[in-house]
């Protein structure tokens, strides 16, 4: 082994270390170790003065290895490495010996033992540092531009912000219009603002923004990454309607689908299945772009070999084009924001609630559609069975949320918004028809947000009745539905004859597994996108350059969604604005002399980061994909693949230095 010049810097941590560990003894022990040319101690290594000392000694003595014995490397390893780099030493020749958390803190009543352990920890790091080699830090230029996937309120808001900062944004939405779930919610709690009145201007802003390129009716079907760049393959589905469309609606009026005689009936997505829609349609009046779309799966032209061409015949603008084909485009961007939102849980599996078996059991999203003056019942909440106004309405909370762990038919998590959605709808109903009896059957009522408690209290003033308890059964009797529930606060069993039962169904992640897999994103056990850190990094993901916003990350209300979308946009802007990214050097590398191209490493790699090059018969590491976990190093039969800074001789040297038995030469 070539001779090295290693410096050891022992920090007192202002007494946190030195009150327990005998720093002088550790220093003297370190000074005796091979290759150690300097062992010193200081009150605060992390202070400006401490860092200056470190840099001065590196420069003056030409150190090519440093051990800082201080707190956990999670605190200041990056800081010290940066300082060492500035002083001219390769940053990756510096290691931390954790003598605070692992010695003075954990063994504070045993100073002698803490000191002995500190000597060994320093020694182990000295031995490791002696075997470290300088690493090149590679950077890659970040491709300008950002893709936002999902055109709900999260994606819209993030796109506007990023566009306004000057970034080129491609907003990709799989349905024919932007707007997402918020567009359907009628009013928003706790202010009862008209949802469309607040959303529509933002939809327009995104649509008209010079820096936002909108791709609707388009889906990301593949994603590839290379240093600093994501290439997304987007499939634009054919609308069969060209930009010549003038929005006259004649095609929809004449379309024979979903008419009384039509064998094809299509549920309207916009009205949550409470109404039918035509095969050629505009999802809702404010939809953007204002382009009609033919749903080929439910169109006589496509389903019956061109049997029907009514829309083409009535179109005054010649905008119908049955020959359109799906089109694939590649988009190159430096960052991606995943804002794929949620869908409402389908309560059919919960048979005791009779959803899907009785028309007068609906979900809150369906209730919202009924409350819309433009909706299927023009604003009155009615029984779908006969259209009569519902005089007694029972709302049921936690449907599909807060279920028993391990029950696959429900979710374990709280969906967070359903309490306030029920309060909102109950109030809107009471305000419109004060004689209506509205019950909310709940488990815990969570009014945690700003203005929520007041909103909840106001609903009680309006006469909304709250019953603590969830129903055991919902059964039809005559025109009514009998709801049986044990009131946990009074101990009484109630039987409520209801006209309408409204289920507060859970929010569950949109079905985007293929997208997440293509982007190499993980999910948390609840099925939502896994964030980099649930507490302090909720908008970043484990893939550098990919961010998450809104309900894709977890259930949240519109306020929180907007806040998080802003945060994700900011994180993406900072990332894009940096212009280049540093590639983690602590990853796997191949020794070509030892590699036999046996494929074991590729089999265990979870990140698709190593491939065998068939031409050279050699494994090759993808430096942008490798995370440096080292699984491959254990299965490699020849030791050809190793992780930098965690190579066998380096780890073995640490083990030996800590071991009870020493081998004398």
């Amino acid at each position, binding site marked *: 082994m070539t001779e090295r010049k290693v410096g050891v810097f022992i920090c007192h941590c202002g007494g946190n270390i030195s009150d327990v560990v005998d720093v002088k003894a550790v220093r003297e022990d370190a000074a005796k170790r091979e290759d150690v040319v300097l062992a010193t101690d200081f009150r605060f290594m992390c202070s400006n003065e401490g860092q200056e000392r470190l840099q001065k000694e590196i420069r003056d003595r030409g150190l090519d290895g440093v051990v800082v014995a201080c707190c*956990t*490397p*999670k605190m200041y390893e990056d800081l010290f490495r940066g300082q060492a780099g500035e002083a001219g030493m390769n940053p990756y020749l510096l290691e931390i010996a*954790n003598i*605070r*958390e*692992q*010695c003075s*803190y*954990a*063994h*504070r*009543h*045993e100073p002698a*033992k*803490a000191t*002995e*352990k500190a000597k*060994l*920890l320093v020694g*182990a790091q000295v031995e490791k540092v002696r075997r470290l080699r300088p690493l090149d830090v590679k950077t890659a230029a970040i491709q300008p531009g950002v893709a936002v996937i999902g055109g709900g309120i999260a994606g819209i808001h993030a796109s506007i912000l990023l566009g306004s900062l000057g970034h080129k944004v491609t907003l990709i939405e799989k349905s024919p219009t932007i707007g997402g779930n918020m567009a359907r919610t009628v009013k928003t709690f706790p202010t009862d603002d008209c949802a469309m009145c607040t959303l529509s201007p933002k939809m327009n802003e995104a649509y008209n923004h010079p820096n936002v390129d909108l791709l609707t009716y388009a889906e990301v079907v593949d994603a590839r990454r290379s240093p600093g760049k994501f290439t997304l393959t987007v499939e634009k589905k054919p609308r069969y309607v060209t930009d010549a469309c003038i929005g006259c609606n004649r095609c929809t009026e004449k379309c024979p689908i979903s008419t009384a005689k039509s064998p094809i009936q299509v549920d309207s997505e916009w009205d949550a299945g409470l109404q039918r829609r035509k095969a050629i349609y505009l999802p809702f009046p404010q939809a953007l772009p204002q382009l009609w779309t033919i749903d080929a799966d439910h169109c006589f032209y496509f389903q019956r070999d061109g049997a029907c061409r009514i829309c083409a015949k009535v179109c005054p603008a010649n905008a119908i084009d049955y020959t359109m084909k799906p089109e694939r485009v590649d988009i190159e961007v430096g960052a991606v924001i995943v804002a794929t939102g949620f869908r409402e849980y389908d309560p059919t599996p919960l048979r005791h609630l009779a959803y899907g078996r009785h028309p007068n059991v609906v979900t809150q999203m369906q209730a919202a559609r009924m409350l819309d003056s433009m909706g299927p019942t023009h604003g009155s909440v009615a029984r779908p069975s006969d259209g009569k106004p519902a005089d007694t309405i029972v709302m049921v909370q936690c449907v599909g949320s807060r279920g028993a762990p391990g029950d696959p038919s429900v979710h374990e998590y709280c969906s967070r918004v359903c309490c306030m959605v029920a309060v909102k709808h109950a109030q809107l109903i009471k305000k419109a028809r004060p004689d209506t009896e509205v019950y909310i059957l709940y488990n815990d009522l969570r009014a945690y947000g700003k203005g929520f408690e007041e909103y909840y209290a106001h609903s009680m003033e309006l006469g909304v009745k709250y019953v603590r308890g969830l129903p055991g059964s919902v059964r039809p009797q005559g025109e009514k539905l009998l709801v049986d529930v044990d009131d946990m606060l009074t101990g009484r069993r109630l039987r409520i004859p209801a006209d309408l039962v409204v289920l507060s169904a859970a929010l569950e992640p949109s079905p985007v597994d293929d997208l997440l897999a293509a982007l190499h994103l*993980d999910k948390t*056990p609840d099925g939502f996108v896994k964030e980099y850190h649930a507490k302090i990094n909720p908008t970043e993901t484990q893939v550098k350059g990919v961010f998450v916003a809104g309900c894709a990350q977890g259930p949240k209300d519109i306020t929180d969604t907007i806040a998080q979308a802003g945060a994700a946009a900011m994180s993406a802007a900072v990332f894009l604005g940096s212009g280049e990214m540093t590639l983690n050097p*602590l990853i796997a590398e191949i020794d070509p002399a030892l590699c036999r191209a046996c494929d074991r490493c590729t089999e*265990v790699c*979870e*990140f698709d980061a190593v491939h065998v090059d068939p031409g050279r018969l050699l494994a090759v590491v993808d430096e942008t994909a490798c*995370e*440096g*976990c*080292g*699984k491959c*190093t*254990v*299965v490699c039969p020849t030791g050809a693949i190793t*992780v930098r800074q*965690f190579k*066998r001789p380096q*780890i*073995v040297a*640490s*083990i*030996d230095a*800590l*071991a*009870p*038995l*020493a*081998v*004398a030469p």
Partner: protein
Amino acid sequence: MTVVARLATDEPQILAFCCNWCGYAAADQAGAAKIEYPSSVKIVRLMCTGMTDPYYVLRAFERGFDGVLIVGCHPGSCHYKSGNLQAKDQVERVSTVLRGLGLEGRLKMTAASASEGPQFAAAATEFTEQVRKLGPSPLREA
């Protein structure tokens, strides 16, 4: 080659391989919370327990450790998806070898999340006591 004892102690000497994200962070948390565990437990930081080569375990015993503890993330929450599961497989493999060497019960794998300082300290303490009952490693005595 001469082998010399570096420590004159009856305390069971434990080497702990901790993953950077959970085990090591849990040990940090234990320290920060001033939860004590035996000072005879020494930690080697690996990025992932999946990096734990069986050779490292054997080397630790060869160099006189009485027990080896591997602390990773809980199943399902590995920072690298499933490195901890590979580590578990490797532990099972090397355990067979250890049995043949009379080192049964001296290797243990456990999980502690980054916030589970108390669990780390408890695991370190309990494993030390388990090894104490087994007595010094036969390889150290030899």
